[in-house]
């Protein structure tokens, strides 16, 4: 049987540049935020959120019942220059999965939330 296109078998130019890894500090900040959200620790969430984003971040925080979720997964990560968009899904034994998207950016080495949107029941930040 001829090889009809298994990508791993395709010959061609190999990567010439190193794969860009996301900053470990950004991932740590995301983990800190997600754990705070799952615990219902709104004070820690607020501490990571500048005033102009607080309303939208707290709308997401309030939609997450405390201690109902015990796992999170980062299902998407895309960037605009040095800001990272993350899509996260929270899961718990007796809860419907909760999906939301947020953007993290660093100022003076501190990663904070720049925008947040509940994606539960919708396809993207674009439309319902």
């Amino acid at each position, binding site marked *: 049987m001829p090889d009809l296109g298994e990508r791993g078998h395709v010959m061609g130019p190999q990567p010439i540049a190193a794969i860009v890894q996301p900053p470990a500090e950004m991932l740590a900040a995301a983990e800190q935020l997600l754990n705070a959200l799952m615990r219902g620790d709104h004070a820690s969430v607020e501490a990571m959120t500048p005033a102009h984003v607080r309303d939208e971040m707290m709308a997401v925080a309030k939609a997450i019942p405390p201690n109902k979720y015990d796992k999170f997964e980062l299902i998407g990560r*895309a960037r605009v220059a040095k800001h990272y968009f993350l899509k996260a899904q929270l899961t718990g034994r007796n809860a419907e999965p909760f999906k939301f998207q947020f953007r993290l950016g660093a100022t003076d080495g501190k990663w904070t939330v720049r925008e947040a949107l509940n994606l539960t029941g919708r396809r993207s930040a674009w439309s319902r």
Partner: protein
Amino acid sequence: MEKCIPVDRLARPDNWVVLRSRQVREIREEQGLEGGRPMPFDEETLRSRLHGIYTGELQAMEAAGRTLFDFPDAPWEFQLDMARQVWDEARHSEIFQRLVEYMGGHPGDYVETEILWRCTQAMDPAARVAGINRGLEGLACDVFDQLIRIAQRNGDEVIERSVDYVLADEITHVRMGSKWMRKLTEGDPERLAKAQAFQDMVDEVFNFRGGRLAQEDIENDDGQVVSIAKEARMLAGFTEEEIQRLINSARKSAAY
């Protein structure tokens, strides 16, 4: 026919993030970077630009497929051309996906914007091909012509040859658009004018704030501004008058 399908109805893996172009510009500005004019010789910028073209090719494939679906009463040869274009754009998507990987990136590493898809929302097949095949594919001629020069300056034959291969197809897509825009509007000058107006609107979107200019209007060609590829456009069948009209419109946008 359902009008104005939102961009997030397009099939994408769940890890992709789709945003408005305006929002991407604002986020860049928030980081102290000027709108859409990064330094093209920088490795990171090139990777991000290749990713942008990759998603553009995906949307071009979807746009041509949608045109095929939306106008079942159009001439059979028109449908054949659109089907051919879907095939071409699918290959282009794969080529640019491989170029993103060549530069150390992955599909979905950067956000996808809606701007190209937005330019496909016309209800008349003549306007549709004017906007997509003449407006967007004409833009592709400009962008690819410049990318080839950037690759030449970087001494990167892989990108240079890959993009040249794709550019040859884009030229045939523009020709296809010109042929069908004229054929579908034969004897109907009002319809032709509407199709051309739709194309002008698409061209205007990409001339925004002087983001595209004639080569002679660019003082230092550091690759930040997209230049209008006269030679490729002539090969694609644009008339000198049409190219001059685009140049004049680009000058007006830059002044604005």
